[in-house]
């Protein structure tokens, strides 16, 4: 009997390891021979741990599984969800980047190959670098880390740059609250990231790659480290990539708890062993990146989307999406939501569809008050904005950003003044200290919001002015985007800022 129990961090945090132990014991009692595969997550976090049993008809799901109910895996019962592939949450998705996540054994290269893995890399090996770059450019892929910069254009800059050594740096410092796509793919399908990085290496002429993973992700670090070793042993990485005369190797590096290191220049400094202080641009990292050499710095999902683009062609990928937002985006539905998890789909869904239909509304059952899109530096959107389609330009038109596509849902008990204060406090704690608007501005922001909280409405114009300064005067997105959550909270939920004043007056 072949049984899948995810080893994804969310599944483990919800008791997957205890389920495995109970499952083994139960199988022993019944004298049933079981093979347990620790797969990635299918992304339905509210059903985790989601156990699957392989049958002649397909995989049958059980969840959320608890150790006390493992007998149901053998006998059926209330936790049985039927065929996994028929679950509406999965059926509604277009899984390109996450096609294999949850399906395969993450560390089996044979499984990876059997499900279309390495086709992109094999094709890339037959193409000149400039052709690979062109393919990625034509796919319309934009940086999934948040900035949305066209990946192909970044690659072209590195391709055209001269240097004794070039690098591919994968930014896996996924620090934004509400996001976990990078973590999930690293834990569930690590070879797709390795393949994407190798293709990037071939494209721009880099032979060395780094994956900079945040220390808060112990499971991802473990799986990626093991996967790199497997890839090396099986000839995917090393001096001869898939038996060719091209070399590429990867090193896993671990961050040390600094949020700002998700910013690319700060990450490069950290990788070099320095304080994670932001660098002024120019020079672009593409020209003077790691150790001053030409470097591609891409987010995990950007790189993990490259293999399918090379395997199926740019036109196939670009066939999904809307406007200038091409392809698919792994939405991460989080916070106070009934059905939270990862949902990969073409761009263009409205927030209402995402939160109400896919997410099923709030977990608390109360009305949705706000959704923060794009992490701690993203705007809070109010229900009257829930009909804008999910796309880069569509969101920037609303003074919002899609960022890494994390969506955090809040019910009507949320205090928007408190959340605005938190945004400033977070910026103050995490500021690298290099530029004044961020370092000092965030501290003043907390103080100003405290004044508003005490009922001093004269501080509101001051806050607006401060946000303007931070937005245009900061060196990077930390200070520059903290005004998004603050100003959106103030603009769309003025009552939360005025109500405090009233209470204080009374």
């Amino acid at each position, binding site marked *: 009997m072949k049984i899948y129990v995810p080893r994804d961090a*969310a599944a483990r945090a919800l008791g997957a390891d205890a389920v495995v132990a109970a499952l083994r014991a139960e199988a022993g009692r019944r004298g049933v021979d079981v093979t347990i595969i620790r797969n990635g997550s299918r992304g339905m976090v509210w059903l985790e741990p989601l156990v699957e049993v392989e049958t002649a008809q397909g995989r049958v799901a059980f969840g959320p599984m608890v150790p006390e109910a493992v007998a149901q895996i053998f006998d059926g019962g209330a936790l049985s969800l039927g065929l996994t592939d028929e679950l509406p949450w999965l059926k509604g998705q277009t899984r390109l980047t996450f096609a294999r996540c949850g399906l395969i054994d993450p560390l089996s290269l044979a499984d990876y190959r059997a499900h279309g893995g390495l086709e992109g890399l094999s094709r890339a090996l037959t193409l000149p670098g400039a052709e690979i770059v062109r393919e990625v450019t034509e796919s319309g892929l934009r940086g999934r880390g948040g900035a949305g910069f066209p990946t192909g254009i970044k690659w072209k800059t590195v391709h055209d740059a001269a240097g004794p050594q070039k690098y591919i740096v994968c930014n896996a410092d996924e620090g934004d609250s509400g996001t976990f796509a990078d973590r999930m793919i690293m834990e569930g399908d690590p070879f797709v990231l390795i393949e994407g990085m190798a293709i990037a290496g071939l494209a721009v002429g880099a032979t060395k790659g780094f994956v900079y993973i945040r220390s808060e992700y112990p499971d991802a670090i473990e799986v990626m480290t093991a996967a790199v070793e497997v890839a090396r042993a099986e000839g995917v990485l090393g001096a001869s990539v898939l038996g060719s005369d091209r070399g590429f190797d990867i090193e896993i590096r671990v961050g040390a708890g600094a949020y700002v290191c998700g910013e690319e220049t700060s990450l490069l400094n950290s990788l070099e062993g320095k304080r994670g202080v932001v660098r002024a641009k120019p020079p672009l990292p593409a020209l003077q990146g790691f150790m001053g050499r030409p470097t591609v710095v891409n987010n995990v999902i950007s790189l993990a989307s490259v293999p399918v683009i090379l395997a199926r062609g740019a036109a196939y990928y670009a066939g999904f999406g809307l406007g200038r937002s091409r392809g698919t985006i792994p939405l991460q539905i989080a916070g106070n939501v009934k059905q939270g998890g990862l949902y990969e789909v073409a761009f263009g869904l409205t927030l209402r569809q995402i939160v109400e239909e896919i997410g099923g509304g709030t977990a608390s059952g109360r009305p949705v008050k706000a959704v923060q899109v794009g992490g701690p530096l993203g705007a809070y959107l109010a229900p009257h904005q829930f009909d804008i389609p999910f796309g880069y330009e569509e969101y920037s038109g609303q003074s919002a950003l899609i960022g890494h596509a994390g969506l955090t849902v809040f019910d009507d008990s949320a205090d928007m003044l408190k959340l605005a204060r938190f945004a400033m406090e977070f910026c103050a704690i995490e500021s690298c200290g290099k530029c004044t608007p961020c370092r000092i501005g965030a501290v003043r922001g907390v103080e100003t919001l405290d004044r508003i909280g005490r009922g001093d409405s004269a501080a509101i114009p001051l806050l607006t002015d401060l946000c303007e300064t931070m937005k245009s005067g900061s060196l990077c997105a930390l200070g520059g985007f903290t005004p998004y959550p603050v100003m959106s909270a103030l603009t769309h939920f003025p009552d939360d800022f005025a109500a405090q004043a009233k209470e204080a007056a009374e």
Partner: protein
Amino acid sequence: MSDQSVTVARVQEIVAAHQGLEGPLLPILHAVQAAFGHVPEAAVPVIAEALNLGRAEVHGVMSFYHDFREAPAGRHVVKLCRAESCQSVGADRVAAHAQARLGVDWHGTTADGAVTLEPVFCLGLCACGPAAMVDGRLIGRVDEARLDAIVAEVR
């Protein structure tokens, strides 16, 4: 050998094992902390010398990152996520409960040296918060009862 020279010898070993890396300082600091539970003061000059850096530079890097400790933590470290997704499902309430229960503020260690309480900003468990990390193990949907169970387990 004195404690000091044992420390220095161990740090030298760690540094030697990482010398071939490009930008070896963070991997070295992680390894030193893994070996000692913190980065001992005596390690700084050893690392500085080997990497041809000033002591102040090494100290500067160490103090920049939240992960590196100058002194050992309690026997157990409980990290609670303070970020927005966890806040939306009651993280502030759970944190206040933890602080009251342990009698410490953030970064504090209980008087018996058993537990250090730390904030963390996102563990990637945003669809099953509030999230905690106890001695490196992740726990989702932490409410007051589960927090009490965690505390009982580590005390």
